[in-house]
C-alpha cells in the first residue's frame, strides 16, 4: 500500500512523470487491446491484403492521435505557438523541443502495437498469403492460377474445409510467420539502437540550448497550472464575498421594510451571528426567491 502511494506521489510530483505514466498506460492498453481483439481474416483474394494491413496501421494511427490528445503538454505547446507576442518574446527552440518530446511520447503506443502485431504474425499471414510464390511449396503448383490464388487466400483460415488437413497450408503459414517475426524483432532492435544513440550522442551537440529549452518548457507548463489554480482560488473568494454581500443587503432590506427598531446593544452570540438577521420563514422564502429572480451583480467592490 505504501509502495503504491509512493509510486503515485512520484508520478504526480512532476508533470513529465505524469506524461510518462500516461504513455506507459497507453502502451499497456494497446497490448491489451490486441489480445482482446478477435482477429478473423476474411480469406478472400482481394480482401486479405486490405484487412491485414488495415489492422496493422489504422489502430496505430488512432493510438498516435490518442497519445496526442491525452498529453496536456500538446495544448500548452499549441497555446504558446499561437499566442500573440505581447510583452514576451517567443522562443522557437522551446516550441520545437516541446513538439519533439510530445511526438516521441505519442509514438510509443503505435510502435508497441505494430511490433506486437508483427511478432504475433497473424496480420502478415493474412495480408501476404496471396503473394507467396506457389512453386516453393509442394501441393500448390499443379492447379490453375485462379485456384492457386484462392487456395493461398484461404491459408490463414485453419478451420476452412479445404484447408483443414493441408500440409502446404502449414508450410506457407510458418514461412510467413517467420518473416513477420524477423521483421518485428529487427524493427525493435533498430528502434532501441536509435534511442540509445540519440541519448548518448545528444550531450555532444548543443547541450546548452537543450538545457535552456527544457527549462523554459517546464516553466511554461508550471506557469499555466499555477494560473489555473489562482483563477480557481479567486473565483472561490469572489463567490464567497458575493454571497455574504447578498445576505447583508437582504438583511438591510428586511430591516428597512419591517419598521422594527434596530437591535442595539446586543452582542451577537454564535448562532445569532450565523443567522445574519434572517429569522423568519417568510424572510427565508424572500431571500431564496430573490436569489433566483434577481441574482446580485458580479461586483464586490463596495464590500
Amino acid at each position, binding site marked *: 500500500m505504501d509502495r503504491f502511494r509512493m509510486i503515485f506521489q512520484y508520478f504526480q510530483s512532476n508533470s513529465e512523470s505524469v506524461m510518462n505514466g500516461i504513455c506507459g498506460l497507453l502502451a499497456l492498453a494497446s497490448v491489451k487491446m490486441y489480445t482482446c481483439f*478477435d482477429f478473423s481474416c476474411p480469406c478472400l483474394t482481394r480482401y486479405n491484403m486490405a484487412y491485414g494491413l488495415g489492422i496493422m496501421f489504422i489502430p496505430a494511427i488512432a493510438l498516435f*492521435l490518442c497519445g496526442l490528445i491525452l498529453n496536456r503538454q500538446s495544448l500548452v505547446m499549441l497555446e504558446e505557438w499561437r499566442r500573440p507576442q505581447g510583452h514576451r518574446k517567443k522562443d522557437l527552440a522551446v516550441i520545437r523541443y516541446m513538439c519533439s518530446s510530445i511526438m516521441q511520447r505519442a509514438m510509443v503506443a503505435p510502435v508497441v502495437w505494430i511490433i506486437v502485431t508483427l511478432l504475433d504474425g497473424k496480420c502478415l499471414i493474412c495480408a501476404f498469403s496471396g503473394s507467396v510464390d506457389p512453386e516453393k511449396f509442394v501441393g500448390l503448383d499443379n492447379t490453375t492460377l485462379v485456384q492457386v490464388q484462392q487456395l493461398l487466400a484461404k491459408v490463414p483460415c485453419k478451420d476452412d474445409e479445404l484447408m483443414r488437413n493441408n500440409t502446404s497450408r502449414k508450410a506457407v503459414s510458418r514461412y510467413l510467420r517467420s518473416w513477420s517475426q524477423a521483421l518485428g524483432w529487427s524493427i525493435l532492435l533498430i528502434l532501441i539502437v536509435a534511442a540509445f544513440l540519440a541519448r548518448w550522442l545528444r550531450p555532444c551537440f548543443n547541450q546548452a540550448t537543450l538545457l535552456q529549452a527544457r527549462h523554459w518548457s517546464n516553466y511554461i507548463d508550471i506557469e499555466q497550472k499555477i494560473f489555473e489554480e489562482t483563477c480557481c482560488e479567486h473565483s472561490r473568494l469572489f463567490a464567497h464575498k458575493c454571497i455574504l454581500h447578498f445576505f447583508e443587503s437582504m438583511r438591510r432590506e428586511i430591516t428597512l421594510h419591517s419598521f422594527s427598531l434596530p437591535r442595539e446593544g*446586543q452582542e451577537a452570540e454564535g*448562532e445569532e451571528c450565523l443567522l445574519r438577521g434572517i429569522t423568519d420563514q417568510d424572510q427565508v422564502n424572500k431571500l431564496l426567491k430573490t436569489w433566483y429572480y434577481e441574482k446580485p451583480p458580479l461586483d464586490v467592490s463596495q464590500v
Partner: protein
Amino acid sequence: MDKFRMIFQFLQSNQESFMNGICGIMALASAQMYSAFDFNCPCLPRYNLAYGLGILLVPPFILFLLGFVLNNNVSMLAEEWRRPRGQRGKDPAVLRYMFCSMAQRAMIAPVVWVSVTLLDGKCITCAFCTLVPVETLGNASHSGLSQGAMKRVLARIPCKEIYDGQELIANEVAIRYLRCVSQALGWCFVLLMTTLAFLVRSLRPCFTQAAFLKSRYWSHYIDIERKLFDETCTEHAKSFAKVCIQQFFEGMSTDLVAAHCHPPRKAPADVGEAAEKLLGITDQGTMNTALKSWHKCKPPLHLHPPALHSSNGWAGEEQPPPHPPVPRREMAAYYSRV
C-alpha cells in the same frame, strides 16, 4: 480498499478530474455491459435488420442520456439558462461552453459501445446477413431458389445450428466476410472519432483562446457560487433550527412554571453545565408534555429576539393561538408571567 480510497480522493480533489473519472467508469461499464449481454439473433429475414441495428444504436442513445443525467452540472446549466436576468447579465458563450463540455463527456460511453459492437461483429453479421454477395462468394445460380427462399436461408447464417444453406454459400465464408466488413467499419469509426477529438482539441487554442479562458472562468465561478450558496443556506438552516428548538424548550419550561404556579426556582450560582442543558425540564411528566407538544403543535418558523423570554402561550392540551400577523415584539409585551 486503501488503494481505491486513494484513487477516489485523487479524483475528487479536482472537479474536472472527478468528471473525467465518471466518464472513464461509464466507458468501462459500457464495455462490460456489452460483454455481459447475451446477443440472440432472431435469424428471420426482416427481424434481423431491426434487431441488429437496434442493439447497435439504441443502447448508445440511452448511455448518452445517462451521461447527462449523471452529470451534476446539468441542473446548473438549466438554472443558468432559465433564470431571469435580474441585476446580472447572461453570457451565451458561458452556456455554450458548459453544454459543449457536458456533451463531450457524455459522448464517450456511446462511442465505446458502438466501437466494441462493431469490432465484435455480431450485430452487423445479424443485421446484414441477407445482403451477402452470394454470386461472388457462393453458388447462387446452382441452387434454383426464389428470392424469398434465398433470403430466408441467408437469414439463418448467424445461427449455425439451424443453417441449411451449405450448398448455397458456406457458413464460415459468409460469417468471415461479414465480420471482416464489421471490423473494418469499427476501426474506421474509431479512427474518425479520435481524429474529430484531436481536431476539436487542437483547433481551439489556434482560434478562440481568449474567449475560452473567459467562459471557463465564469462557468467555474457559477458552479462554485452555487455550492457556496447551498453551504451558506445549510449553515443558516442549522442555526435557525438550533435557535428555534432552544426557544421552544425555553418557552415550554416557562409555560409549565406559570401553569403550576411555582415560583421560578432560583438556580444556585454554581449550577453545572448539565443542569443548564436540561433547560428546566426535570421530570418525566414535563418531558412527556414537551414531546407531545412538539408533535401536536410545532412552534412557528419565527425566532424571537434573544432578550425576551416569551412563552409559547399555552401549556397542556389547549389549542395554540393563531400565528400573530404583526412583528412579535409588540405582542410579546402583553404576555406576562402570571
